């Protein structure tokens, strides 16, 4: 772990002397990309971060939204990509642990976990299978043990992640507004380290996350201990209820170094601490090792001496370590001692604020030709193609994954994983709908429109449950920012997200940047990930079973936008074409109309139309309810297109509404009034999924056969290759 020479001279000039070796380690950890956001921070400011529901407090690691009735929802997103690429089980598990502690540090109880998982081609690549399988087990073992339901997420495979893994985890918390920790410190307060012991594991982790895999430090392996984390959650919430906590911070990347310096900086205080007081796993650890160790499951608490006794009793009850490691000063210094001897003494403000960079950017060469389409071999048998498609890893049901996650614990899960967004009931009588979405295939072809598309897709998903989007989390994952072409894609994505957020008045309540995601074969495709939180005041739309005679109404236009589609990439092995674009006014109109028809309780269900296009979205409805459907492609809203384009285009802002015949008139009236583009495109019944164009049958599949393939193919691939 080291500073660049430019940074070293900067540090020397700021402190006016040579740093000690411990100081060097502390600063290197804190000035790493992972902790300081030095390449991205200047630009992140463009995102709108305020709104009527957003609560801003100093020192929070998570976003806070006021959801009414005296309650708040908190949310945060993190990734654990580098660690998961070398040790998928531990990497994914500790990724969950990290983001859960972010939620806890606001003083809220974590109530749901979401995971976004990305790997190489699991059909061909054994390594990708191994990574996938173990990452899923890691998320499962950790979240299940904590008793926090993992209720949503996504899984995607793409060659660009060969020998690599993206493991993103988001967590949502809930609590009373009055219980939020108002981070502060008073004279004479003490600094307490609580939780697991500090060991040598994970030393250099945050630095590791900021290096590409080739130059990785393979010693950065972290062992998950969900049992300790569970006890920490219980202990902290009990201490919170007893009002024992003045300030609270989780330990993540950079370990104590970052926690101490960021807390001191945020609260405008100094912290003096003694490394000998830290409960360690090994007896011979050096001060700098203790300061940068990234041992998991630890929290930093500031409290006063009278409350300390009660805090210690709580820790004793829950059998977790609790060491008073230092005290609050008012010199704004991070002062690290070992006994009497000083090992580091730096201004918190210098440590916590790395000089921000303004990196050059340049439009990538490849984008000049990427929209050109090649001639494809015509499809002769669409039914056969469709079966192959339903079995493909990106389209197949993800039930093998989410059935390993306890998604019911906490008894809040009203809409369970498997549909669009998942929905939780809240104690104020409202409901929270959440979904995370990414789409690297489209973001590669058009970083701006692709990112906007992820945003809209996540919104669409929560809208399908009847929820109004109230907050957004973004996670920006790219290759090395030092490559101007990559940095350009980063900026484009960010600008796109900013435009959409401003236009739709959805504030960004938190996020994360993960750079240097490089595999031996090069940088990953741009992979922004968007999480959307939606609020439902009255009642969510819970999918009602489709029965014979129900109508299928499609809202939104299908356009010739197959760039980055699963159809191009999986069936034709073609990367390129025109990326779907969101028309902001159409998007808004459609969202509003869907919310209106749900409020009027007209539909039996509303399903989002996205990956795999109309063909897959309709099949999903049929397979879930085991009922057939006849769809006429010639009635699909939008310009006239060849059948494969209508079937598989991934145009945005489209919804599939299932509705009883008796409600169809009312629906039409609302949609007409709102000037929405829509058509009745099909009718349910029978045992077959049928698409026709005029009199010509295009697809004719038995639902039961399709369902079996779709449900089982991912599991079979993982277990048997």
């Amino acid at each position, binding site marked *: 772990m080291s500073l660049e020479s430019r940074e070293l001279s900067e540090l020397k000039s700021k402190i006016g002397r040579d740093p000690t070796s411990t100081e060097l380690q502390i600063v290197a950890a804190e000035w790493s990309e992972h902790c300081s956001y030095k390449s991205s921070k200047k630009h992140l400011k463009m995102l709108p971060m305020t709104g009527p529901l957003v609560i801003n407090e100093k020192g929070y690691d998570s976003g806070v939204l006021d959801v009414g009735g005296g309650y708040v929802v908190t949310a945060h997103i993190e990734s654990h990509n580098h660690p998961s690429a070398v040790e998928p089980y531990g990497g994914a598990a500790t990724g969950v642990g990290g983001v859960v502690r972010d939620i806890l540090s606001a003083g809220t109880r974590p109530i749901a976990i979401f995971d976004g998982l990305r790997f190489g081609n699991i059909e061909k690549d054994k390594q990708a299978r191994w990574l996938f399988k173990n990452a899923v*087990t890691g998320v*499962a*073992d950790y979240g*299940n*043990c*904590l*008793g926090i339901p993992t209720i949503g997420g996504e899984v995607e495979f793409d060659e660009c992640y060969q020998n690599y893994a993206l493991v993103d985890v988001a967590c949502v918390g809930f609590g009373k507004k009055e219980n939020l920790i108002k981070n502060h410190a008073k004279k004479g307060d003490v600094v307490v380290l609580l939780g697991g012991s500090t060991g040598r594991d994970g030393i250099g982790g945050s630095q590791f996350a900021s290096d590409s895999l080739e130059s990785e430090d393979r010693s950065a392996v972290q062992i998950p*201990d*969900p*049992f300790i984390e*569970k*006890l920490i959650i219980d202990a902290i919430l009990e201490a919170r209820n007893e009002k024992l906590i003045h300030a609270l911070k989780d330990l993540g990347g950079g370990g104590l170094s970052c926690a101490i310096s960021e807390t001191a900086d945020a609260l405008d205080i100094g912290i003096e601490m003694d490394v000998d007081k830290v409960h360690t796993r090994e007896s011979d650890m050096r001060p700098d090792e203790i300061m940068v160790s990234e041992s998991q499951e630890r929290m930093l608490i500031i409290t006063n001496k009278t409350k300390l006794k009660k805090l210690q009793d709580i820790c004793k*009850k*829950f*059998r977790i370590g609790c060491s008073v490691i230092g005290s609050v000063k008012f010199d704004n210094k991070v002062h690290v001692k070992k006994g009497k001897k000083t090992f580091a003494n730096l201004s918190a403000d210098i440590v916590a604020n790395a000089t921000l960079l303004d990196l050059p950017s340049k439009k990538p060469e490849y984008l000049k030709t990427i929209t050109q389409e090649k001639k494809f071999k015509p499809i002769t048998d669409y039914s056969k193609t469709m079966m192959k498609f339903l079995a493909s890893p990106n389209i197949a049901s993800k039930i093998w994954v*989410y*059935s*390993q*996650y*306890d*998604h*019911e*614990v*906490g*008894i*809040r*899960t*009203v809409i*369970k994983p498997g549909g669009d967004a998942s929905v939780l*009931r809240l104690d104020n009588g409202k409901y929270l709908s959440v979904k995370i979405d990414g789409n690297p295939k489209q973001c590669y072809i058009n970083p701006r429109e692709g990112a906007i598309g992820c945003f809209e897709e996540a919104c669409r998903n929560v809208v399908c449950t009847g929820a109004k989007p109230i907050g957004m989390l973004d996670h920006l994952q790219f290759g090395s920012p030092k490559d101007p072409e990559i940095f350009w894609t980063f900026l484009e994505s960010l600008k796109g997200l900013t435009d959409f957020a401003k236009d739709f008045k959805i504030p960004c309540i938190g996020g994360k940047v993960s750079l240097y995601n490089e595999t031996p074969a090069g940088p990953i495709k741009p992979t922004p990930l968007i999480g959307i939180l939606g609020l439902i005041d009255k009642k969510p739309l*819970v999918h009602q079973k489709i029965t014979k005679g129900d109508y299928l109404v499609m809202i939104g236009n299908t356009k010739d936008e197959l760039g980055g589609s699963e159809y191009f990439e999986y069936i034709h092995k073609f990367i390129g074409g025109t990326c779907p674009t969101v028309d902001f006014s159409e998007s808004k109109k459609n969202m509003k109309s869907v919310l209106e028809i749900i409020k009027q309780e007209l539909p039996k269900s509303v399903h989002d139309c996205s990956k795999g296009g109309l063909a897959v979205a309709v099949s999903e409805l049929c397979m879930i309810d085991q009922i057939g459907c006849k769809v006429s492609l010639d009635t699909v809203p939008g310009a006239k297109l060849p059948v494969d384009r209508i079937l598989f285009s991934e145009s945005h802002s489209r919804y599939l509404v299932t509705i009883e015949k008796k409600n169809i008139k009312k629906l039409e009236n609302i949609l007409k009034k709102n000037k929405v583009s829509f058509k009745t495109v099909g009718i349910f019944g029978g045992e077959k999924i049928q698409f026709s164009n005029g009199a010509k049958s295009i697809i004719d599949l038995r639902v039961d056969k399709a369902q079996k393939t779709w449900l089982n193919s991912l599991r079979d691939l993982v277990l048997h290759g």
Partner: protein
Amino acid sequence: MKVGVVVFPGSNCDRDMYHVLTDVFNLDAQYFWHEKSLPKNIDAVILPGGFSYGDRLRAGVIAAHSPIIKDVQKLADKGIPILGVCNGFQILVESGLLPGVLLKNESLNFMCEWTDLIVENNQTPFTNQFKLNEKIPIPIANGEGRYYVDDDVLKQLKKKNQIVFRYSKIVNGSSNRIAGVCNESGNVVGMMPHPERAVESEINPIDSKPSSKIFESLLVKMGVNN
């Protein structure tokens, strides 16, 4: 009428169970930390699900050594109704209050899904409101839920009417598709599925009435008119 909910380090369905007892069935419930003792005049005890001690060594084995288990044993001997759900069932089995053992699921995975139970014994304090062979849609969520007994013990269980619930189809490879059992006197019941997740229609997509009867049976047993 007081129902005790025992909390071990790592229990994570204790709050769910408490909510159901108090908010849904209007019972007077109280948490008991595993190091405390249970009052002699308590009316029923529930061991909720979760991962006591992180499921280390074997699910339930460390918690089975908790001080409170001696009290649970005493109450069991007195005929007080005792229910163990999921990890609570594992703890009852590991502490010898119930026969058998719970092994890793045949899939080797944690399984979270909805399934149907069949009521095999409607004489226990938790099943007296059921008809025999009644179906209960209910979720399971466990990694070590495969109930195992050898053939001799199985014969005994059948003879003494100790099989309380069976799965309607093969779920995890358990002996005789057993999902729940009771002790010989019938007052101690253990089950792998989670009734507390199935008694509210808002979160039960199928039918919340059958699961509710598990708690209604307890109310009847204790003579509470709700």
